[in-house]
């Protein structure tokens, strides 16, 4: 089972509605993606907390059907 890029972006936006999400398919196998997520929800959060918020939006798929998601997160620049 794999995931497609739109499905990942949709899931992230469900919990981070203002997020700008850029997904890159690293290997074309639906299992290895890179994602950049920019959201105001990340303000004041550590990087670990920001990544945990994204993982939670993926509802348990991270490390399962989605083997690898190279993640970079940030709050919008002021």
């Amino acid at each position, binding site marked *: 089972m794999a995931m497609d890029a739109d499905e990942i972006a949709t899931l992230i936006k469900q919990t981070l509605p203002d997020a700008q999400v850029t997904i890159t398919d690293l290997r074309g196998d639906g299992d290895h993606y890179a994602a950049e997520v920019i959201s105001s929800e990340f303000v004041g959060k550590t990087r*670990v907390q920001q*990544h945990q918020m994204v993982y939670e939006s993926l509802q*348990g798929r991270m490390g*399962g059907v989605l083997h690898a998601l190279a993640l970079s997160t940030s709050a919008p620049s002021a």
Partner: protein
Amino acid sequence: MTQAAVSADHPVFERIKSEIDEQDVVLFMKGTPVFPQCGFSAAVVQILSQMDVKFKGVNVLDDTDVREGIKHYSNWPTIPQLYVRGEFVGGCDIIREMFENGELQQFLVDKGIQQAS
């Protein structure tokens, strides 16, 4: 939920905690520092070796309970996981990002961890 209650739910937490407390820098990884068995684990091993940081590798492939338990312990769904003085620092992405912008070096200095000058 108290620490005792959490441990009761996850008996492996005691073992994980003892691994984490045993050395200043502990990397839960797939494989060993000499023979990493996953690209992400190998990337963190390489960063730590490049910085000449002494660390202990815990091979989660040897122990399914630890492999799954560590994800609940840190609320982090993937391996590798790096701990410094008992604190979860991050997985491959975060360690690589911190290393590339010099944050990891400063973090280790702040924690009093020996590294290559």
